[in-house]
C-alpha cells in the first residue's frame, strides 16, 4: 500500500505494509534518524513525535493510520524557526540549561515539550512535569529539563493563549492529586 502524509512540512510517500510502525518508516524508509527507539512498547517516550498537533509514541502508531496526516519530528523543530542559529527556542534552552546528557531521550523530550508549549502550556513546574511524564530520562534527574522548558514557556508569547483553558487548570489540579 502507498501512504502519503506531511513530515516537517514536506510531502512524503511510502510504499510499505500498513502495519509498519511510524517509527520504522521515519528511521528506515525516510532516513529521519533523529527519532529514537527506546523500549518499543510505549513506555519510555524516546520515539515521541507530534501527529496532528498531539504528542504520540511513534512505536505505537501503524503507518496506515498516518495517511493524510501531519507529522513533526525533532528534525523539523529548527525548520520552523528563523532565528540566527536556526534552533528552536527549546533546543537553545536545552543547550543553555545543560538539559541533555547521553541524549537518547532528548528528541522525544523536545517533542513532548513542543506539544505542551504549542498547546498553550505555561511555566508551572507541576504542569511541565506532567507533560513530560511519559518521557524517561536516566541521566539528568529531570530538573534541568524542567528548567529549560519553563524558561521557554516564561519567555514565549503563547500563540494561542485561549488554549490554556479552565480545563487545563483542572487537569493540572487532577495531576497533583495524591494517589490513595
Amino acid at each position, binding site marked *: 500500500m502507498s501512504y502519503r502524509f506531511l513530515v516537517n512540512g514536506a510531502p512524503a510517500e511510502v510504499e510499505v505494509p500498513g502495519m509498519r510502525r511510524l517509527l520504522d518508516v521515519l528511521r528506515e524508509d525516510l532516513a529521519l534518524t533523529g527519532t529514537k527507539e527506546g523500549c518499543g512498547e*510505549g513506555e519510555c517516550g524516546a520515539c515521541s513525535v507530534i501527529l496532528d498537533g498531539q504528542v504520540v509514541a511513534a512505536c505505537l502508531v501503524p503507518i496506515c493510520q498516518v495517511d493524510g496526516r501531519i507529522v513533526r519530528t525533532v528534525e523539523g523543530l529548527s525548520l520552523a524557526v528563523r532565528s540566527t542559529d536556526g534552533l528552536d527556542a527549546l533546543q537553545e534552552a536545552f543547550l543553555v540549561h545543560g538539559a541533555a546528557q547521553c541524549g537518547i531521550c532528548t528528541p522525544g523530550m523536545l517533542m513532548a515539550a513542543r506539544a505542551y508549549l504549542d498547546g498553550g502550556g505555561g511555566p508551572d513546574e507541576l504542569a511541565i512535569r506532567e507533560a513530560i511524564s511519559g518521557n524517561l530520562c536516566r541521566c539528568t534527574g529531570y530538573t534541568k529539563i524542567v528548567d529549560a522548558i519553563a524558561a521557554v514557556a516564561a519567555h514565549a508569547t503563547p500563540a494561542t493563549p485561549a488554549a490554556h483553558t479552565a480545563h487545563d487548570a483542572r487537569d493540572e489540579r487532577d495531576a497533583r492529586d495524591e494517589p490513595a
Partner: protein
Amino acid sequence: MPAEPPVQSPRSLAEAYALLESAVAPGASGASGAPATPATPLTPIAGGTDVMVRITGELGPIPERLLDLSRLDELTGISLEPGRLVIGARTTYHEIRRSALVREHLPALVEMAATVGAAQIQNRGTIGGNVANASPAGDSLPVLLAADASVLVGSARGERLIAAADFFVSYRRTALAPDELILAIHVPLPGGRVVRFRKVGTRRAQAISKVVLALAYRDHGAAAGWSDVRVALGSVAPVPLRVAAAEAALEGARPTPEAADRAAEALAASITPIDDVRSTADYRRIVAARILHRLIREQGGW
C-alpha cells in the same frame, strides 16, 4: 522490526462488518463458488496502545490480520441521549479529559483518564480499546462497572447492548462475538449518584495499576443511608469485578467509621488477588481495603 501483518482500513461500518463476517464464515462472502479458506481472525486496532505492543511478539501470539478502525467516524464522539451519556468506542482518554459532558455527568471517568499512561498514551488510547482488551488492570473498567455502564456492540447481524457486569467473562475474554465490534459505551445518567475512583500504581504517570477501585452510591440522607452501592475493583482478579460483600455491607448504611470498617473487612475477605511482577497478593488485599475505607471516610467527612 516487529511483524507487519496485513491490515485493512474500512471506510464505513458496513464495510467493517462485512470484513468481520467473512473472517468468521470463510468463503461465505467470497466470489461465486470460491473454495472455503480457513478463517483467519481479524484483530481490530484503534489507538494501537495495546495491539502495537502485541505485534512485537513479546506478549504471546502476534495478531494474524488487523482491522484498522481509524476511518470509522461512526465510532467517535460523546453525546447526551435521553437518560444516558454515549461515549463512542474510539474516544481517546485525552478527549474524555477535555469533555465537558463527561466532566458534568461522570467526573470519575475524567479522573480515570488522567491516570492512564502519559500524554502519548492518552492521545491515542481509546475507551473501546480498554474495554476490548479486557485487561484485569484496565483503568476504565471499574468505573464502568460501578456506573452500571453497558457496551453497545454491532455486527452485520445487528446491534445489542451488553451490561459491563456481563461483559468480562474470564481472563482477557469478553462477551464480544468474533464478528462484533464495540461501537460505544452507554452510561446511565447518575441522577444524584456519586461515583468515586482511585488508582494505586508504582508512580503517578505511566504506571499499570496495582489496585484500581471505583465506588458508587445514592445518598438518601441520615435516615435511609446509601442505596445502589457499587464497589468495583481492577488488578485483583482475572477480570475486573464487583465485590458483592462490600456492596452489601454499605447498602442502607451511612458513611460512618463502623460502616467503613465492615465494608473494608468484607472486601479484604472476599478477594483473592495474586502475586505478580507488579505487586503481591497481600499488598493488593490490604491496599484495596484501605482505599475503600478512605473513600468512605472522605464521603463521611470524618
